[in-house]
């Protein structure tokens, strides 16, 4: 895959689990696709659905929300809220005919470096198959 058709994926990673997991994947020299741009947040509960919408509307081909496994949240319940918000967001996009597959939610713990590598690779592949975000060239947003 060359840089021409490499999708743009925005990842929101919780600092305690997923970001640490991603860090570990890097230390272990696992192959992570260059498509993903990581934004570190203090908790997946900090991922305002508006962040995700903004990324999508501005032309990101995919958005990944990542956090600790349910029950493992550093702040006890942040990721439960994330999960509801994700379900709501996907439902809204689906109802309106927008591509809900472009947003995804992953639980990745601090030790799950291989899972991080697998998640990013799988999602990048899926998004590559879907093709570019149709809203990328849309100027009325």
């Amino acid at each position, binding site marked *: 895959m060359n840089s021409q058709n490499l999708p743009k994926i925005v990842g929101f990673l919780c600092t305690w689990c997923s970001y640490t997991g991603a860090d570990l994947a890097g230390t272990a020299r696992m192959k992570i696709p260059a498509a993903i741009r990581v934004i570190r947040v203090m908790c997946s509960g900090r991922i305002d*659905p*508006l962040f995700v919408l903004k990324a999508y509307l501005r032309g990101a081909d995919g958005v990944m929300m990542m956090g600790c496994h*349910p029950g493992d949240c550093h702040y006890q319940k942040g990721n439960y809220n994330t*999960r509801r918000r994700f*379900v709501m967001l996907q439902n*809204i996009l689906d109802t309106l005919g927008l591509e809900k597959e472009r947003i995804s939610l*992953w639980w990745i713990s601090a030790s799950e470096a291989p899972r991080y590598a697998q998640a990013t690779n799988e999602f990048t592949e899926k998004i590559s198959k879907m093709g570019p975000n149709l809203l990328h060239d*849309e*100027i*009325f947003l």
Partner: protein
Amino acid sequence: MSKALKINKGIEEGIIDFLEFLIQGGKIRGVFTLKKMNENGAVAYSLITSLDELKKAVPFYPFMPVNAGKVLSSFTLRAATEEPVAAVLRPCELRAFIELAKRVQGSLDNILLISLTCGGVYPLRSLKNGDLKNHLSSYWETVKKAEIDPETRPTCQSCEDFIPQLADMTVATAGMKDIDKECVILLNTLKGEEHAANAPGNIITEKVENGNIEKLQKLREEKKKKLFEDFDSNHAHPKDFIKTFAACVGCHACSHSCPICYCTLCDFDSKTCEYQPQSFTSELGQKSGLKVPPGNIFFHLGRMNHMAVSCVRCGMCSDVCPVNIQVATVFSRVGDSLQKVFNYIPGRDVEEPVPSGTYKEEEFTEFGEQ
């Protein structure tokens, strides 16, 4: 079956008589209801304490200048009313008020809630040139026959929640043949029964179902189904949604008129969503052009995320839209689908938490684990 108060007058006169009785007996201090503002058919929600003013009240006028839930919340925001007040409002307005009370934006205490089996309201535009006045007689005819008035708001025509759930009293209108001669007020709660004690008229037993109501419910359900099916078939492609809002001028009137959008400073009116000069440049670096002012689609999608799960389908947003976008159809469609996910009905119960503000540990467990 519940107790009901039957007054031998037309519903419009009957309810005024009853409210007069409540004020005279000191059971309530005032009434919150629609009042005539001029002879051309203009009405406004008013707080009325004097009997003279009460004569100008038109509680069942088929018009919603503003969602009453929003107004009720504004004067019960800090605390419940000190003196008891009766409020006459439509089922969707009542639901909106309950949704606001859940969000600590109002208090139901000390308010006697009077609602009706609703035949719908006319769009705001119908007030122009006194058009609405000419429709009134045909409106009441369709209500009597439990049919759908094609001139009412599209949300009203497809509304199946026209029987109020939490009202203390329900005035039966839909499908009641004799509303010109008799006013039947169903007493749903103990509070309602207490207020109706010794009122002029007879206490009878009556139920909200009258055969015609079920017919109307069916008609409306079909209409809603059709409306949603049309919506779905018109929104299959990602760009369809953008076309729907293509004419949007970004005035945010839909949000300002929405009873659920209670935030004093909306996220989308705040600095957070303001475009800085450099944001234009950076976005133009990514795209071949940019609509200015930007952010309309973001606004609608974002607002949906914030309130659609509590959408009471009052239709205010469509009515206030200066460019005639059917905002309410979009929001009610999304709201309906969200409410199904969480098995939530806005305004069903004051104690029920709003889905976006709560969670359960054992739900949606399939997400995130792929």
